């Protein structure tokens, strides 16, 4: 029994057997048969029928017992095979445009959940309810729209922004993947050249004939090995650095963008938390040095309010500034961004047939 049933569903699922309910032409006669629907009544008909009936202006739906007035402009291809779902999604779109509150507007999770359930119930009434329920739901919808017009507008904007941010992030990730792939290709190319060069050198030395041939080949092999292992080590250490260093930073950006939680305002700090207290020396109130004595004792110097302490602190600062900073370290830290798993995943998507997908994005997905 169940098999029979599955077969019958398979038959109707098969687009080859689809027949236009209006003109009864089927795919056998018209291979380019395409069905369109109008969200007014969700009766499907083929594109020829639509052209035939609605080109000259609005007309009533040709399906028996419907009789709704339709316009050609309203017709489009159905996304879902099941038109009931298509209709439900259209309704959802309509309701979603009105009830578009976000979770962070609610005080607690349970009130958010209650809200969600209320909306869901409303949609359910619109989709499957009786005439009365539908009318009531429509009424609620209208009332809500009227009452909260401004908030709806705000949330809509917020939603669009969030989408933009998401898109931006995706684009950035893709770009990062591309960059990394290029870098790796370049690296491999260099490796190859290196090995090639080494080999040529070895041949030349052999040709020149100085030294034992065995020794030369052995030496060359060793050099190549050493180089490749050194390169690997370098790459690995870089990787270790970057993996520890910047992976979390990337994550935190994503967290930030999603939820902009305003932090409690702190007192304004002009130096941005930079500690200006000297770490490598302690400033004394006076230094004994004979060529300072003159300045110390001379009233001319002190007249304008000049303080020796200022002088001391500046001199000491200049003497110690720049100590403990190694340019080498800072340069290394900048090299190669890390590859968090996100990038890996995006890259993997590209690898498994990304080209096709990009093509696809340009037009409609289906």
């Amino acid at each position, binding site marked *: 029994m169940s098999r029979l049933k599955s077969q019958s569903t398979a038959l109707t699922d098969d687009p080859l057997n689809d027949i236009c309910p209006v003109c009864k032409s089927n795919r056998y006669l018209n291979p380019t048969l395409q069905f369109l629907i109008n969200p007014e009544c969700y009766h499907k008909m083929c594109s020829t029928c639509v052209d035939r009936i609605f080109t000259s202006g609005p007309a009533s739906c040709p399906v028996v017992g419907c009789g709704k007035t339709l316009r050609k402009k309203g017709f489009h291809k159905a996304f879902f095979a099941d038109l009931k779902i298509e209709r439900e999604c259209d309704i959802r*779109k309509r309701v979603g445009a009105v009830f578009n509150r976000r979770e962070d507007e609610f005080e607690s999770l349970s009130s958010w959940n209650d809200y969600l359930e209320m909306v869901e119930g409303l949609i359910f009434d619109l989709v499957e309810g009786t005439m009365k329920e539908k009318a009531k739901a429509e009424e609620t919808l209208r009332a809500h729209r009227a009452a909260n017009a401004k908030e709806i507008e705000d949330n809509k904007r917020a939603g669009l922004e969030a989408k933009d941010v*998401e898109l931006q992030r995706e684009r950035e990730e893709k770009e990062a993947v591309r960059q990394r792939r290029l870098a790796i290709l370049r690296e491999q190319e260099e490796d190859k050249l290196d090995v090639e060069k080494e080999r040529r050198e070895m041949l030349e030395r052999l040709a020149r004939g100085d030294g034992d041939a065995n020794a030369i080949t052995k030496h060359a092999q060793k050099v190549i090995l050493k180089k490749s292992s050194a390169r690997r080590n370098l790459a690995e250490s870089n990787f270790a650095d970057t993996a520890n260093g910047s992976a979390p930073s990337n994550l935190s950006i994503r967290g930030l963008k999603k939820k902009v939680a305003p932090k409690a305002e702190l007192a304004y700090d002009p130096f941005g938390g930079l500690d200006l207290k000297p770490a490598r020396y302690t400033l004394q109130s006076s230094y004994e040095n004979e060529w300072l004595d003159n300045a110390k004792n001379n009233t001319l110097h002190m007249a304008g309010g000049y303080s020796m302490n200022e002088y001391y602190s500046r001199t000491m600062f200049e003497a110690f500034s720049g100590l403990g900073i190694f340019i080498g370290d800072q340069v290394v830290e900048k090299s190669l961004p890390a590859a968090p798993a996100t990038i890996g*995943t995006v890259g993997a998507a590209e690898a498994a047939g990304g080209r096709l997908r990009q093509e696809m994005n340009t037009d409609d997905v289906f």
Partner: protein
Amino acid sequence: MKFNIGDLPVLFPYPRIYPEQYDYMCDLKKTLDAGGHCVLEMPSGTGKTVSLLSLIVAYQQYYPEHRKLIYCSRTMSEIEKALAELKALMKYRADQLGYVEEFRGMGLTSRKNLCLHPSVKREKSGAVVDARCRSLTAGFVKEKKDRGEDVNNLDLLEPHNLIPNGVWTLDGIMKYGEEHKQCPYFTSRRMMTFCNVIIYSYHYLLDPKIAERVSKELSNDCIVVFDEAHNIDNVCIESLSTDITEESLRRATRGAQNLETKISDMKDSDADKLRAEYDSLVAGLRGAQEDRDEDAFMANPALPDDLLKEAIPGNIRRAEHFVAFLKRFIEYLKTRMKVRQVISETPPSFLAHLREYTHIEKKPLRFCAERLTSLVRTLELTNIEDYQPLQEVATFATLVATYEKGFLLILEPYETETAEVPNPVLHFTCLDAAIAMKPVFDRFSTVIITSGTISPLEMYPKMLNFETVVQESYPMTLARRSFLPMIVTRGSDQVAISSGFQVRNEPSVVRNYGNLLTEFSKLTPDGMVVFFPSYLYMESIISMWQGMGILDEVWKYKLILVETPDAQETSLALETYRTACCNGRGAILLCVARGKVSEGIDFDHQYGRTVLCIGVPFQYTESRILKARLEFLRETYRIKENDFLSFDAMRHAAQCLGRVLRGKDDYGIMVLADKRFLRKRTQLPKWINEAILDAEVDLSTDMAVGTAKKFLRTMAQPFPSLDQDGVSTWRIEDLEAHKEKMENESIRQLRAEMEGIENGGGKEVVQNGNGKEEAQHMGDDAFDDAEAEAEMMKLDH
């Protein structure tokens, strides 16, 4: 045999021990003391399981913590073998100690293997048995029914004393269950927390759908062992991946419709129940206590750390809302399946698209599996197998909404490149093996990963993202050279042979492979196993051999049997092969390096005297899933594509080679026939690589034949097992001598360090370090320093 490792007394159930077993135990103890993870490689057939068990049991019994052992293996037969070993060990311990220890060891396997119910146990498929068992044992059924036979007995016994102490093999527990009228499956499930040793399959720990229910109550200081773990990354990945087909979607739709009618029925008859469920969902109470019960319909497929600990979202709280939600999701998937081009996308972009068209948010999707479980329980559905596809879809939904990183959706509309009729499959594939493994490493302080072929060792920590305390590969000590690995790179006509894509179908290569096969079929006594890289290549090469008359030639010497993708055919072929090996001239089994035969089926003694590996068994690199995974590995773990591919090929090759050598009294020839093996030699396990002499690399067919003949002649000489004593097997005296020597060695080393390098002490240390290499150069049959020492000891006596 009784000896001490450090302060730990170990009882070893055999009178003799292999040197590598002793080393293995020492390293194991080091790991347990340090409390970290380790990766150990020990040659196949040298008693890995028994050394593991005897050391860990000794450790358990000696130290007051009594850390529990969870031993995971791959197949049923391996689990049974381990249980038998454990039983023998415990018997030996009882004999030696003079009393029986307070000890319980148990194996766990599926309901199908452990069922006693007269009609259920006759079902063929495991899923059906599971479903029928649930329909008999689910909580609500039990409440309604009077207490019958079977499971219900369990409730009468004390929960911690369902079964007496001792080691229970699967057969043993079945028998006990039959006698006492209690279900073996539930007995072992419930007794797990009271066991000292649990032996089961990987999946019970790695697959979140099962692990959640089975392994949740295990404490954190358990010692976890993954035996035969060379494929563990694939197990991890499979446990988090799902595939969806058009057929399964169709059946899922039907399931959703059934649910809908059931809900409306219930609304008419028993609305209170639905309301009660709804109320509990509103209150955010999940049926946590019931959830963990064995009878839950399905567990959450996401890993425990990734579960959201909050109430179910409001828009799927009502049963009818949830069913509409499911229908919408299924319909969306159906529409996507209609696309006729390959799509690969990340979960976030999938979710974004989903939201745009169906207004399904991420959060309710995450709760899909949980909500479905709750609904099924409320509706008291018993014919659960009908809802299997729906469950698959819910699993998919939860996974796709939970994981952003390390996962990928790939839609393949056609089965093969050339297919005309679309058969779309939506793969949701996990790319990162570390995801499933992470909770295990996080939770348990000691995880031991071990196998016969797990080289290169550093690959596993990298891939699974963990740190090791000990990472060691052991050589095989042998009193005579009992296996002969060779790399054949050329045919007799000096043409290089390779299964590389460009040359694999060239007649000269095929003929040379054919000649190799003919020659070895002539000289091999009894059985011979041949491995090909793929079914496709095997078929093409066999048909070419047929055309060249090579098969007719081989036919004169041996029976030819072929492995096929069909399991039943293969097992028939295997049976015939074994019969042929025991009678007459033996047979040749042609099989595939990634097939069923290459893993888990042993060809010991006469069943396999030669293994011939034709070509490097690379994976099918055009597979989109593999491509994606390679890219991910490179980006995330810095493992280069080629490194991974060659590592993967070599671990399979090593598995194939390991099939023929299953013990120290066994002997066999291993031939690697491809010129590319020359470069990959270092990626073989240490014990194989060390046994390849430099003269036996880069051979041509005729040279290989000559070497093999000489080898077989030496193998034909009588070899009394006494000769092995002190060399490849140690009696207790040898062990004591070795220990003393090691102690002296370390004392000398310490002293030398103290005296400083100038006094010549440093030289001694250096010599120690090089001892291994030197010993190798001493001669053919000196394999490592242990052996050299043993020989020296003989001279002393």
